């Protein structure tokens, strides 16, 4: 749940990353979003102060993320990742502002059903049974796959988008999923 922790940490930051002095932060570039998710989990488990962010335009390929980290921890972070056979493609100093993921939820109560929207993704559950009845929005190819895997299952049974998703739409759905679980006390 590390990625979602990042969103929570925006409100209750215990150990903030250094303020906007870009020279003391860097970012890690990986082959694909799936590796970013793995690296993020690993580094959070090792108490590293990292954040998932959007890449700068010069290295943007499409549906991607980078991990922002304190440059002073470069060697330590590299060691952790290499030990896990998850070396980054590049470690680059931050030279400009990185994009922040959205952190706004919109909630719609349909009476028997509750829908939460995060970015472009919407997840709807039956409030009584907690069965996921629909997933809508999004444009990356894992969205229909996530729909096929999650719709019809309860919030407790369904795989989390984080486990089976690969894209930014999958990440957005993870946020909606976490928010629904929080609201439904799952």
């Amino acid at each position: 749940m590390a990625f979602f922790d990042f969103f929570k940490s925006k409100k209750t930051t215990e150990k903030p990353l250094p303020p906007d002095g870009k020279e003391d932060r860097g970012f890690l570039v990986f082959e694909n979003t799936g590796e970013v998710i793995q690296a993020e989990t690993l580094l959070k488990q090792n108490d590293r102060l990292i954040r998932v962010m959007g890449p700068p335009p010069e290295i943007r390929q499409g549906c991607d993320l980078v991990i922002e980290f304190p440059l002073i921890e470069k060697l330590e972070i590299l060691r952790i990742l290499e030990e896990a056979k998850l070396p980054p493609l590049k470690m680059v100093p931050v030279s400009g502002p990185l994009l922040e993921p959205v952190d706004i939820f919109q909630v719609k109560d349909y009476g028997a059903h509750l829908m939460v929207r995060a970015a472009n993704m919407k997840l709807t559950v039956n409030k009584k049974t907690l069965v996921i009845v629909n997933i809508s929005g999004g444009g990356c190819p894992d969205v229909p796959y996530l729909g096929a895997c999650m719709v019809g299952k309860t919030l407790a049974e369904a795989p989390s988008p984080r486990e089976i998703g690969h894209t930014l739409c999958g990440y957005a759905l993870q946020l909606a999923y976490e928010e629904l679980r929080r609201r439904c006390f799952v």
Partner: protein
Amino acid sequence: MLCIAGTVPSHDFPLVGGEATLSGDRLLVGTTSIDVNRGTPALLAAAVMAAETLELPPPFALLVGDTGTGRGSRALYAHLAEVLPAKSFKTITFHYLQPIIHWHNRLLDVIKTLNPRPCLIADAGFMYAAKMSGAARAYDLFTPDVGELAFLADEKAPHPFYTRGFILHENNRVPDLITRAYLHRNAASYLLVKGEKDCLADNSGILETVGTPVEDVLEAIGGTGDTLTGLVSVMINAGMEMRKAAVTSMRINRMAGRLARPTPATQIMEIIREIPQAQRDLTRLS
């Protein structure tokens, strides 16, 4: 002929091309049978239904399995770049593909050489790629929902996931978002915006609005935007002028939604089944 290119949610679904038909609730491309869940199969199923009612040829589907790794999408981008010069599609609708800038640009370079140039419609991941490549103006129609419109309006966002908060908060100000999208050249010639009220816009602003019938729960149902894109693709390919194509499609989609008596748990195929009746009702009303 109308070509619809996109993905299906499967790890091992091969790249297939052919006319799409429906057999019961399943989509058929050649001998391959596909579940109509949401995404491109929903778009295709709506297009098949609409074309059949209008006694038009079925759409040509180009599909590949992709569960988000991008592997299938890359294969489809490459295939499109290879085969399009030898095809003569009148309209091409690009849908659920992994947004990959360099593949998008390579494909667009090929499309620019086509003569006559097909009408280009982009939705979902391919629309994201078109916008983030800075090539939105090369397209005839984008079909965003309101959240995606905010992404188009944010000149800095490479994906809806990064749409800045102050723009997301303008969700109810669709005209402002449309203006901003055109100001930064991040919109196609036309925008069909799916929302509480559907609308068609160009760089002069909103041209047409359809707000009835109202079924609030359609927003929760996965695939309702895909069906609208499928419908408008058929209407445009049939030769309808853009405004008429958009209004006709927006009405049919809403009427089909109403006929399905939807709840938030309704699945998209229940709405797609109602498209022929909605088409007949619309013809009778007009």
